[in-house]
């Protein structure tokens, strides 16, 4: 590959264009060093509403049609040209295979057309990388690392329609570890499925969050998955799923509960079911996340992913982190959901750390492990 000079002399504040297409958002973001210039996102969410969940083929078709317009808009908003860009970064996994393919092919074409170096990066780590952008860092509402420095003992709790993970970040560019994750549905998926069950529409998260405020979370007790001693073990002898989650049993429990009301000819107390479901999800996510933090010496926790918008998740995570002496950081919501700025932000870190580009021959990997920060 003839990708000259950039590798040996990392730009002090590289201008990086980031591309994201791992699920249903086509994102192009542009970052200079740790400064966000633009974050342009085109979502195909509306096209998935009638299916009650993301349909991979529909998302892939939408990416193909949205990419070039989104790219043009991002360049225009940032007031830069392709010539000005120092490097390109693209999500190469994990994500939906067909969707990833569109962003990766487009990113490679841009690299071939412009001769700029291309970085193939990990989507999950990019969710953390966004916390390195400058901005509103005060009072626990911004990123944890303005100016490009992350706290030493950092963890990340990522909750969305596509993932539920707790990570430990020793170095954002080359040392990230998965402490725990969902073993079946992502939390956001569980919200979508339960919302459909309750006739609340798609996406389920906002609908359930809103309705739950009118319900009694204690009216019904739903199970917390993987919390039995055989899964948890102890801190000294951890069980097989100490920091992992499972939401498929919860979804089944909600379905059974609704059926029982119907079988008795009673009205389903939809608000109570929503509140109790939400409490079960949020309780088990936050308790396991905080446990993982405490047992792994994590003192700062970044909350990312679309479900970071959930009011109860933010509230309970805040309370439990405070009680445990953990500082919680929540980036602005537009940067929590999938976007290109987070990809650019991580790309910028890789360049400033002197890490070489990926070339144009790599394959997207729908199950890229979090230990692979860049390919």
């Amino acid at each position, binding site marked *: 590959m003839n990708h000259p000079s950039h590798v040996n002399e990392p730009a002090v504040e590289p201008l990086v264009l980031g591309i994201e297409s791992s699920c249903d958002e086509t994102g192009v973001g542009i970052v200079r060093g740790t400064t966000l210039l633009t974050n342009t996102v085109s979502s195909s969410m509306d096209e998935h509403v009638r*299916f009650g969940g993301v349909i991979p083929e529909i998302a892939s078709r939408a990416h193909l049609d949205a990419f070039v317009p989104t790219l043009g808009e991002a360049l225009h908003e940032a007031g830069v040209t392709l010539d000005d860009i120092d490097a390109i970064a693209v999500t190469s996994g994990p994500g939906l295979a067909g969707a990833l393919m569109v962003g990766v*092919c487009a990113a490679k074409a841009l690299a071939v057309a412009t001769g700029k170096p291309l970085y193939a990066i990990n989507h999950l780590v990019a969710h953390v990388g966004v916390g390195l952008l400058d901005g509103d860092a005060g009072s626990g509402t911004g990123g944890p690392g303005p100016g490009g420095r992350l706290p030493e003992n950092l963890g990340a709790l990522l909750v969305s329609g596509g993932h539920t993970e707790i990570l430990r970040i020793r170095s954002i560019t080359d040392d990230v570890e998965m402490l725990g994750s969902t073993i079946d549905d992502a939390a956001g998926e569980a919200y979508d499925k339960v919302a459909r069950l309750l006739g609340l529409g798609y996406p389920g998260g906002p609908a359930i969050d809103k309705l739950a405020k009118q319900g009694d979370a204690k009216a019904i007790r739903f199970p917390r998955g993987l919390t039995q001693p055989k899964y948890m073990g102890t801190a000294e002898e951890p069980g097989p799923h100490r920091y992992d989650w499972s939401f498929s049993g919860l979804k089944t429990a909600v379905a059974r509960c609704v059926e029982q009301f*119907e079988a008795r000819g009673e009205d389903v107390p939809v608000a109570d079911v929503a509140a109790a479901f939400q409490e079960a999800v949020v309780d088990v996510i936050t308790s396991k996340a905080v446990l993982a933090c405490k047992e792994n010496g994590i003192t700062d926790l970044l909350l990312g992913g679309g479900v970071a918008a959930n009011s109860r998740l933010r509230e309970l995570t805040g309370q439990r982190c405070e009680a445990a002496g953990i500082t919680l950081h929540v980036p602005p919501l537009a940067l929590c959901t999938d976007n290109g700025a987070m990809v650019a932000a991580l790309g910028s870190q890789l360049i400033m750390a002197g890490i070489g580009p990926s070339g144009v021959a790599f394959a997207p990997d729908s199950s890229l492990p979090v230990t692979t920060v860049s390919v």
Partner: protein
Amino acid sequence: MLILAIDTSAVASAALISDDAMEGVVESFATEDTRSHAEVLAPGIEKLLGDAGVSGADIDLIVTGVGPGPFTGLRSGIATARTLAFAWNKPLFGLMSLDAIALEVAESTEAQAEFLVATDARRKEVYWARYTLRDGQLPQLVDGPHVGSASELPDLPVFGAGGGIYADVVKANREFSSTQPDAASLGQFAMALLTAGEELPDSTPLYLRESDAQLPGPRKRAL
């Protein structure tokens, strides 16, 4: 005039076509397998340009095959072509991918007045189209493209890998029993159309199949 042609409706291929060069093809490459487009296409194009000593500025227009073809592979070529066209600020057009095989048939000794072109659509189906051919002219698409079972094709000679796979039920032409759409032929077809003063269509993909998504049915009530 210099055309960059790309087709990933079956294999991944790209070619540089010039009206100055012998036979029109300056450089070309094509893979054999149908599942590694995202890896091989960009390096292939990079090498193609390097070998020909050509940069984006030298290219007059880009042509991409718009299918029909398996979705994910098909999109990799169209995404690549659209992005190159944007970055280089060049016009982009799309040609139906089966045209590439039709042109090769027309230029061969196997040519017929009326014939079918078919490629593998997986799931026991083929993508196919019907062409007619008059002496000294470009093949004329008269029906299609369609997707369907090979056993339901019109009773005509079938050219292309879609015929080869189902040689037991169709009149597959042996010489063309493994032929896939190729960017070099597609680019030559585009050059011929442009030379004849015809306008080329845009790069909208021809999926022919819906997205397979099932509308969720009403939930059964427990009564």
